[in-house]
C-alpha cells in the first residue's frame, strides 16, 4: 500500500476491527473498545464541521470525562447581522449541510423570538431547534406574566449566554454560534439597536456588526469598511447582499438561497427566500488546470 494513499482507518474497516487500532490487550474492564484515535478527525482540514465517524462516544469510560457532542452532524453556516439607521438586519443562507453534502436546502435558521428580537444560528441544526424550543418556552412564560413588558434583545442575549456557558460546563455544549439582534424600545433616548453574538462555549460580545463562522473572515472586513450605524435601509440591504455574494463565492458549504430579516420600531420582518445574481464565466475558469499546474 502506498503510505500516503491510505484511507483513514475507520473508513477502511470500521473502528472496531481496524488493524490500525491498537486494542488494549491488558483487558481493562472499561475503555478497551475506545481506541486512541477515535476522536481524531479523519481529515484534520475538515475539523470544524466533519461528520463524526461511528464510535461509541456516548458511553463514559471510568475515569474519563464525559464526551457527549463531539461532532456536529447537520450544520448551517455563516450568519451575518448589521445595524442600520432604524434597526438591524440579519441574513444567512438556508442550507443544512450533512458534512459537506448539501443535504437540506430549506432550513430556516433565523427565528423570530418576539416583536423586537430575532435569533440566527450557525452550527448544529438540531441543537438550534432545541434552543428555539427553549426560547419559545421563555416567551410563553413572559406572556403569562402579563405585566405589559416583554424581554429585550439584550436580555435574550444574556439568557442565551448562560444557556451556552452552562452546557459547556457540563462538557455537553450546544454546537452553535448564535446571533441575537433586535431593537430595545424601552430606552430613554428612543429605540436602540442591539446585536450580540454567543459562541459555542458561552463567549459573547456585542458590536455594530457581527458574523459567525466563515463570515468572520469574509464578511466582517466588508462590514468594518462600509457599515455605519446611521446607514439607510437601502444601503444596509445592498451591503448585506454584497457580503452574502462574497460568502457564496468563497464558502463551499453555502447555497444561493438566502433569507434576510429586519427588526425596526415596527416589528420583525423575515423575507421569503431569494437568490443573488452571480457570475461564474470568468476567463480564468475556462481552463482550470492552466493556472494551477498540479503534481499529476
Amino acid at each position, binding site marked *: 500500500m502506498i503510505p500516503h494513499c491510505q484511507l483513514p482507518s475507520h473508513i477502511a474497516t470500521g473502528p472496531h476491527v481496524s488493524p490500525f487500532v491498537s486494542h488494549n490487550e491488558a483487558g481493562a474492564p472499561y475503555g478497551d473498545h475506545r481506541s486512541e484515535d477515535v476522536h481524531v478527525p479523519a481529515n484534520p482540514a475538515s475539523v470544524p464541521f466533519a461528520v463524526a465517524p461511528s464510535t461509541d462516544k456516548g458511553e463514559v469510560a471510568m475515569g474519563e470525562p464525559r464526551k457527549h457532542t463531539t461532532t456536529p452532524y447537520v450544520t448551517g453556516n455563516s450568519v451575518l447581522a448589521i445595524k442600520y439607521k432604524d434597526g438591524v438586519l440579519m441574513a444567512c443562507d438556508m442550507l443544512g449541510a450533512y458534512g459537506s453534502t448539501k443535504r437540506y436546502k430549506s432550513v430556516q435558521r433565523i427565528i423570530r423570538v418576539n416583536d423586537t428580537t430575532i435569533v440566527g444560528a450557525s452550527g448544529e441544526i438540531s441543537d438550534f431547534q432545541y434552543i428555539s*424550543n427553549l426560547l419559545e*418556552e421563555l416567551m*410563553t*412564560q413572559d*406572556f*403569562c*406574566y*402579563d405585566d405589559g413588558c416583554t424581554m429585550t434583545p439584550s436580555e435574550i442575549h444574556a439568557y442565551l449566554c448562560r444557556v451556552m456557558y452552562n452546557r459547556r460546563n457540563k462538557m455537553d455544549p450546544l454546537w452553535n454560534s448564535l446571533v441575537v439582534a433586535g431593537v430595545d424600545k424601552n430606552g430613554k433616548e428612543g429605540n436602540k439597536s442591539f446585536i450580540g453574538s454567543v459562541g459555542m462555549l458561552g463567549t459573547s460580545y456585542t458590536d455594530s456588526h457581527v458574523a459567525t463562522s466563515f463570515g468572520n473572515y469574509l464578511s466582517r472586513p466588508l462590514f468594518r469598511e462600509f457599515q455605519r450605524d446611521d446607514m439607510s435601509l437601502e444601503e444596509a440591504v445592498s451591503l448585506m447582499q454584497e457580503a452574502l455574494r462574497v460568502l457564496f463565492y468563497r464558502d463551499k458549504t453555502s447555497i444561493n438561497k438566502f433569507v434576510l430579516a429586519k427588526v425596526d420600531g415596527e416589528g420583525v420582518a423575515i423575507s421569503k427566500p431569494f437568490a443573488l445574481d452571480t457570475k461564474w464565466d470568468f476567463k480564468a475558469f475556462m481552463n482550470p488546470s492552466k493556472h494551477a499546474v498540479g503534481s499529476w
Partner: protein
Amino acid sequence: MSGVGSGYDLSVTTFSPEGRVFQTEYAGKATDNGVPCVGVCCKDGAILAVEKPEETKMMLPNSNRRIFTVSRHCGMAVPGKLPDGRQIVSRAQQEAENYKRFYGETIPTKVLTDRLANFCHVFSLYWHLRPLGSAALTASFDDDGPHVYLSETNGVSYRYYGIAVGKGRQGIKTELERMKLDQMTCKEALKAVCKCLIKQRDDSSNKKFEIELAWISEETGREFVRVPADLAKECEAAAKKEIEQEEDDDSDMEG
C-alpha cells in the same frame, strides 16, 4: 359531640354515616362565599369576568388579580381563597409547559382541566392536607373552538356554555341561561356579562368594586389577554346604564 353526623367533619379521610365528606363540602363553601366569577363560551371565543370588592381605599387599582394566563391559548379565573387559587394556576402553567415540551403541541383543555381536578382531588385524600379553598374557571381556545371549564375543589371538572361561581352565582346562572350565548360574539357578550355581575350585587353595600375582564377569541388571535382597559370601562358603563334604564321602566309601570 351531639346530633347526627357531628364529629365526622374533622378530617377529609372520614365519611359521615350518610356517606358525605364534610371537609370537602366546607372547602366548596370557601369558593361559594368568594368573589363572583363568570365564564361564558360564545360563538367566536370565551370570556372570564370577576367582580372584586375594593378591600381598602388605599389599594391600587388592578391589584390582587384573580385572572391569570396559563399559556398562550388558555387562562384561568380563581374564585375563593386567592393564595390557594394561585397554587392551582402555577400548577396549570407547569402542566401546560410540560405537555408542550413532551408532545410538542399545546395542551388540550380537557386534559389540562382533568389534571387540575386531579391535583385538587389529591388534597381531599389525606388527613394531613387541607382541601383547596378555590376552584379553577378555565377559558381557552384550541383546535375545536372555545371552551369554558370549571374544575372544582372536590375533584370534578365539567365543561359549560356558561357558568358562575362565588357569591350570587344563582342569580347570574339564571341570567346566563336566558342569554343565547352560542349566537353572541365575545364583544356582545362582554356587556351582558358585566350586566349580570352588577345586577346581582347587594345594593345595600355601597362598597366600590372593580370588574376584571379577560377574553380569548379569533379577534385576539386566539391568545388569552385582558380586555383593553377602555373597552372594559365602556362595557361596564353601558351595563350600568342599561340596568338603571330597566329600573326606571319598572318603577314607571308600578307608578
